[in-house]
C-alpha cells in the first residue's frame, strides 16, 4: 500500500472536540502498525507491555477506531467472550482453565472483521496481543489493553 501523502489526509474532525491534534495524523495512520510492532517486540509475553505505553497507544487508537466508525456492537461477541474469561479467571485463579478459550478469541475477531471493515484494525491489534498471552498476567494485560482502547473509543463519542 502506497504511503498516502500529507495533502490527501484531511480527515474532517468529527466534532469540535479535536482530541487528535493535526500533527498526529500520520501517526494515527500508523497506530495499528506501531502497536503491533510493539507487541511483537515484547521480550516476555504481553505482561511486559509497559502500562504507560499501553495507555498512550490506546489513547491514539481509541479515537482512530471511532474515525473508522467502529461500533462496539460489531465486536460484541468478542467483548463478551473476553469478559467471560476475565470473570472465569477471577473465580478460579487458574490460567490453564481458560488457555484454550483465549486462542479461540481470534476467530471471533476474524469473523467480525470479515463482516465489517471497521472492525479490522481492532482485530489486527488484538490478534497480535492474543498471540502473546501465555499466562494469567499476560491475559490481565490483554484485558487492560482492550478496556483502555474501548474507554478512549467511547470518550470520543464511540458507541
Amino acid at each position, binding site marked *: 500500500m502506497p504511503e498516502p501523502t500529507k495533502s490527501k489526509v484531511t480527515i474532517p474532525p468529527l466534532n469540535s*472536540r479535536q482530541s487528535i491534534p493535526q500533527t498526529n495524523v500520520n501517526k494515527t495512520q500508523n497506530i495499528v502498525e506501531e502497536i503491533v510492532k510493539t507487541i511483537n517486540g515484547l521480550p516476555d509475553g504481553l505482561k511486559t507491555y*509497559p*502500562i*504507560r505505553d*499501553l*495507555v*498512550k497507544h*490506546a*489513547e491514539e487508537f*481509541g479515537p482512530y477506531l471511532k474515525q473508522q466508525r467502529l461500533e462496539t456492537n460489531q465486536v460484541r461477541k468478542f467483548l463478551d467472550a473476553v469478559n467471560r474469561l476475565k470473570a472465569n479467571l477471577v473465580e478460579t485463579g487458574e490460567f490453564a482453565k481458560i488457555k484454550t478459550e483465549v486462542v479461540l478469541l481470534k476467530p471471533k475477531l476474524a469473523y467480525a472483521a470479515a463482516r465489517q471493515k471497521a472492525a479490522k484494525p481492532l482485530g489486527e491489534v488484538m490478534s497480535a496481543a492474543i498471540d502473546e498471552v501465555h499466562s494469567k498476567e499476560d491475559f490481565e494485560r490483554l484485558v*487492560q489493553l482492550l*478496556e*483502555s*482502547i474501548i*474507554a*478512549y473509543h*467511547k*470518550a*470520543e*463519542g464511540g458507541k
Partner: protein
Amino acid sequence: MKQLRVAEKAALQVIQEAIRVLAVWTNSKLKEKLSRLIAAGDNDDVIKKAVAQAQKLLSWNSKGEPKALRLLFDSINLEKDKEKKSQNQHQHYCQPDVIAERNPKIPYPLEKEPSLEDFIKLKYEIKQELDKLDDDRDRDLNNLSLLTLILEKYGSFISFGDSDVALIDIARSTAGVAAALANNPESNNLTLIAGDLSGIQKFIYTISSDGALKSLRARSFYLELVTEEVVQQLLEALELPRTNVIYAGGGNLYILAPAIESVKINVAEVRQQFNEWLLGEFQGKNFLALDCLDFPITDITTEKFADYWSELTSKKLAVHKSRKFAENISKFLQESDSYEPCKVCHRDDVESAELKQLNKNEPDSVLACETCCRMFELGGQLLKVEVIVRSQSENFEDKFDTLTFELPATDKRDAKNVYYHLFHRWKQIVPDNDTALLVNDWNIEHYKFSQFKKSFPLLLGNYAQESSEEKGLIIRANEMAKKAKGVNRLGYLRMDVDNLGRIFAEGLGENKTLPRIAGLSRQMSYFFKVYLNSLAEFRQENFLNKNKLIADILHKKAEFLTPKKRDNLLFIYAGGDDLFVSGTWNEVVEFAFDIYQCFRAYTGNNPDITLSGGISINDIKFPLYKAAEESGEAEEKAKGNGKDSLSLFSQVFKWNEWLGIEDNKIIDSEIQKYLHSETRPKLLGILPFVERLEQQDIGVNYSRNFVRNLLITAEIQEKALEKFEDNKKSEEALGTRYYLHLPKIAYTLARLPKNVLDDTEFRTSLKSPYNAPYFRAIATWIELLNR
C-alpha cells in the same frame, strides 16, 4: 517577705530601664523621671549588683536604641547539609507595630527593612502611651505588670541589641535573671524549672456524650487554669515575680529561678501537693511532671542553654512521667469502691446517688459526676470571659462562675483553697484578689485598674460561634451541623507544628540563647492562641491578601475554595503549637487550609517550619471521643507522609497537593523522572478541580454521575495498587498509579456537559497522569458539598 521585694525590685528595675529605652527613643517626658526612679534603687546594693550582672550577661546596652526586628523564624534551620543550609537563607523583617487591644491582626513579616515612616508612627504611639503614665505618686511607673504589658504591646516588633531579639524578650529575660540573682547573689548558677501537665489528651478526649463539645472546651479551659495555678504556687513559694515565667500555657511551664537548695525543695513539695490533688480530683488521669536543673549562669547566652532546656524536658521530666504518682503512692494504691460509672468521663468512684443529670433541661439526659456536670454547665457560658480573678475568698456577687482548687494538705504543705472567679466584663471589684488574668486583652487602661493587685494577660485560643438559638451561649453541635454546606456533618481538625522539639533544640544553631528561646515560644503560642482567634472571627482582615506583598512571602498566591467567612467553628483547644477545632465540616476544611497558609507566611515561609493536620468528618451522633480519635489518627498519617501534610477524607497528601500549589519538591525525584516526558498540567492537585466544578454549577445529575465514576475509578485504582504495597516504585506500580486508569477518566469526562468540556484546562488537566493520585479526594469533596 523581704526577699520577694528584692527579686521583684530587681525585675522592676530592669523593666523600668527597658521602658526608659522607649522613653528616650520617643523623647517622652518620662525619661528623666525614670532615670531618677532607677537611680533611687541604687541604695540597695543587692539589687544594683543583680541588675548590673544580668545586664552584663545579656549584653544589655542602656544607651542602645530600638531598631528593626529581623524575623526570628528566619534563623531556624534544621538542614544538616552545610551547602543546602546556606541555600535556606531568608531575610524578613517585622513590621514595627503595636499589638491591638483586642483581636490583633496576624503580623506577617516584610520582605524589606521597614521604612523610617513605620518607626515614626510607632514612636508617636509609644510616646502618647508613656506620657500618660506620668502621675504624682509614680504608681504606674512602679507597677511591674503594667510596665511589662506595655513592653509586650509596644516592644514585640522592634529589636534591642541583637537584630532578631525583640525588646520584650531581652527585657523579660534580663529581668528574670536579675530577679533570680537578687535572691542568690553569690551563685554562679541558675535553675530552670520545667513542668508538664500530662494526660491532658486523655482528660479531654475520653468523653462520650451529648453536649460533649462544650464540656470538652470547658475542660481544656480548666486545665489552662491548672497550669496557671501551678505557676502561681511556684512563684509564691519561690518569691519570684512574673517576669521569671519564660513560658506557661497548654500544660507546659518554664520558670527561671535561683540555684538554691530551697528551690528544689519547693519544686518537689508543689509537685507532691498538686499530684495529690490531681489524684483525688481526676483518678490519676492527669499528672504533673515538675523538675528543675541547675546550669552555669553564663550559659544563658550560649547554645548550651538549649541543651539544658532539652535535657530537662526530654530526660528529667520523662523520668517523672514514667513513674507517675511515685510520691503519692499510698493514696494512689488506696482501694476505693466502684459504682456505676459517670457516663461522660467513665470514672467509677462516685457513689451512684451522687451522679446527676448532665443536662437539666433534657428529661432523659445521661447521669454524670459532679465535675462533668460542672464542665457541661461552664462550657455553655464560656463564650465571653473578659477577666478571671484569683482570690482566697470564695463568695461574692457578679461572677458568673468560680473554679475552685482545694489543694489537700501534705506532709510539707498546708491545705489551701484557691478560687478563680470568672466574669463576662473586665471591670470587677473582688475582695482579697491577688491576680487578675485579663483574657486576650492588650488594653493598657485595664492594667492600670487599681482594684487589681496584679494583672497579667491570659492568652487563650478560645474562639466560638455564638448560638443563634440560645443567645449568649456557645453554638451546639446540632445547630452547627445544620449550617454545613452539603452533608450535615461536623469536622474535627487536629494540627500541630512539625519537629517542634528539634526546632527548639537544634533550630537556632549557635544562637540558642534564653531571649531567643523565649521569643520563639512567645511567637509560636501567639499564633495558636491569639492570631487563630482573629483569623476565625475576622478572616477578611487576617487572611493573606492575594494582591499584597504577603503573597510573595509565600512565593505563591493564597488558595481557598470560597472567600466567605468560616466562623461556624468551636475551638476546643488551641495553644502552644497545636489545636483541636470543631465546626461545620466544610468550614473546618477551609479553615485548615487558611491556617496552614497563614502560618507559613507568618513564619516567613521557612521550609523547616511546617504543620501537619488531620480532619475527621462525622455525624453529630457519632461519639465525640471516637471523632477525636479519628482526627488524631488522621494527624498521625499526615506525620507519616513526611510531615507538612494533611489527612482528609482518609487521603494523605502534602498541603501543596491539596491546595494545588506548584511545588517541585512534592513529587519525589524517581516519580519526577518517570513522568518527565509529560507536560505539567495547568491544574495540579485537588482544590483547583473542586473549585472549577463548584463554579461551573453542572447540575445535580451530572455531578452525581461524575462523582460516582470518579469514585469507582479511584476504587479500582486502589485495589490494583494493593499488590504493589512492597514495591511502590516499580515500573508496574508507577504505570498502574499514574496511567492505567486514565482511559476511564477520559470516558468519565466525556460524559460531562459541554460547558465543562469547553474548559480545556480542566479537561486536559484531569487526564494528566500527574493528577492520577487525587481522584478519590476530589470526588469525595465534591460529593460531600453536594449531598
